[in-house]
């Protein structure tokens, strides 16, 4: 990111590892600047002279256009299918990034309504799917989250299954918005499972510490 913000200087060498692929990123071939200006394609090599860097003088941005085939831009529906597949194939593990997180963020940017509907549908299929959906939602940036998805998480607090309530509490802790923390606060008086109550209280206390 810092490399791409250099203006009127021609960066000669970059650390390719600082650039990461972004699912669904759109590259502008005419300006050689990724339209999202967020991240550019991952380059698997590490030596600058093997890559045909293209410098857009007018913008001063550096984009690296490796000759290797670029990741295709996925259709949103294809991304949705991929998201569901990733959720079913990979456990959501504390301390590890889940591969569906990036896909969800990309979809929330381009198709928030569609992904909201799809996640609600998926969550309705079984408690296990609901747990995965809530935990994944918790990891999305709060500012990208439609109200309906936050409401889906808050609904989880009233579930019979303790696993769903746990997923909801953890998602609200991560979300950290005013509505999320208010819902968490209201839930504390209702929770019957000791370890989950401890978690919820800890989450609230650390917010106000």
């Amino acid at each position: 990111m810092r490399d791409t913000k250099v203006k009127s200087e021609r960066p000669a060498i970059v650390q390719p590892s600082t650039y990461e692929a972004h699912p669904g990123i759109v590259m502008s071939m005419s300006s050689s600047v990724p339209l999202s200006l967020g991240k550019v394609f991952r380059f698997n090599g590490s030596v600058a002279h093997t890559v045909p860097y293209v410098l857009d003088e007018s913008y001063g941005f550096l984009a690296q256009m490796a000759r290797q085939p670029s990741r295709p831009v996925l259709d949103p529906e294809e991304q949705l299918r991929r998201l569901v597949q990733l959720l079913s194939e990979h456990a959501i593990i504390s301390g590890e990034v889940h591969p569906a997180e990036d896909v969800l963020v990309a979809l929330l940017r381009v198709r928030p309504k569609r992904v909201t509907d799809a996640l609600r549908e998926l969550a309705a299929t079984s408690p296990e799917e609901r747990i995965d959906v809530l935990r994944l939602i918790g990891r999305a940036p709060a500012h990208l989250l439609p109200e309906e998805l936050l409401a889906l998480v808050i609904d989880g607090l009233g579930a019979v299954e303790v696993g769903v309530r746990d997923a909801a509490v953890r998602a609200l802790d991560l979300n950290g918005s005013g509505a999320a923390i208010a819902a968490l606060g209201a839930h504390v008086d209702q929770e019957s499972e000791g370890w989950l109550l401890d978690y919820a209280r800890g989450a609230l206390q650390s917010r106000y510490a």
Partner: protein
Amino acid sequence: MTVLVRKVEPAAWKATADGIHVTEVAADFVFTKNTSREIATERCTLSFWRFDPTTRGWEDEAALAIAGGWKTINDGLYIVVLEENIVRDAGIALRESAGETRVDDLRDHHVDAEALDIGRLNVMAKIIADTIRNAGRVVARSRGDLLTLLANAAEARRLQLAQLPKDLQAQVSGHLNSRKQS
């Protein structure tokens, strides 16, 4: 008397399925690796952290040891607390080994339950299930708690910020900065 602790998802140990009684452990949620890593072995061992429960703040130290091995703090943490003598008395062999944490002084708090065959793994599972369900010995720490613990450790130079993965480094630095400003 020492305790052995391990990260768990307590809800997985309480989940039921068709034909599984509420007092039994549903295999899908505990043993199946792609839905949970509750008791996934590596080289026939299970990883535990060992602490003296009479030491003040040992639960935080246990949480710090575990979170100190994470790539990012994107969640809170539950830890099950087992009596070491119960594990040993059940015929489980323990061997000291270096723990995977970036908090240097906690690495030697680690032990492996080793030589686990299916029978001994089942014994371990039953001990963990009983501890979660009946003894209720589960410690919970939220995401904010973990960031505070890591920030405290960084301030005390128990871990080096520069050695943390990029995400984790940014999270701990951000927490330290916001603490200074408030």
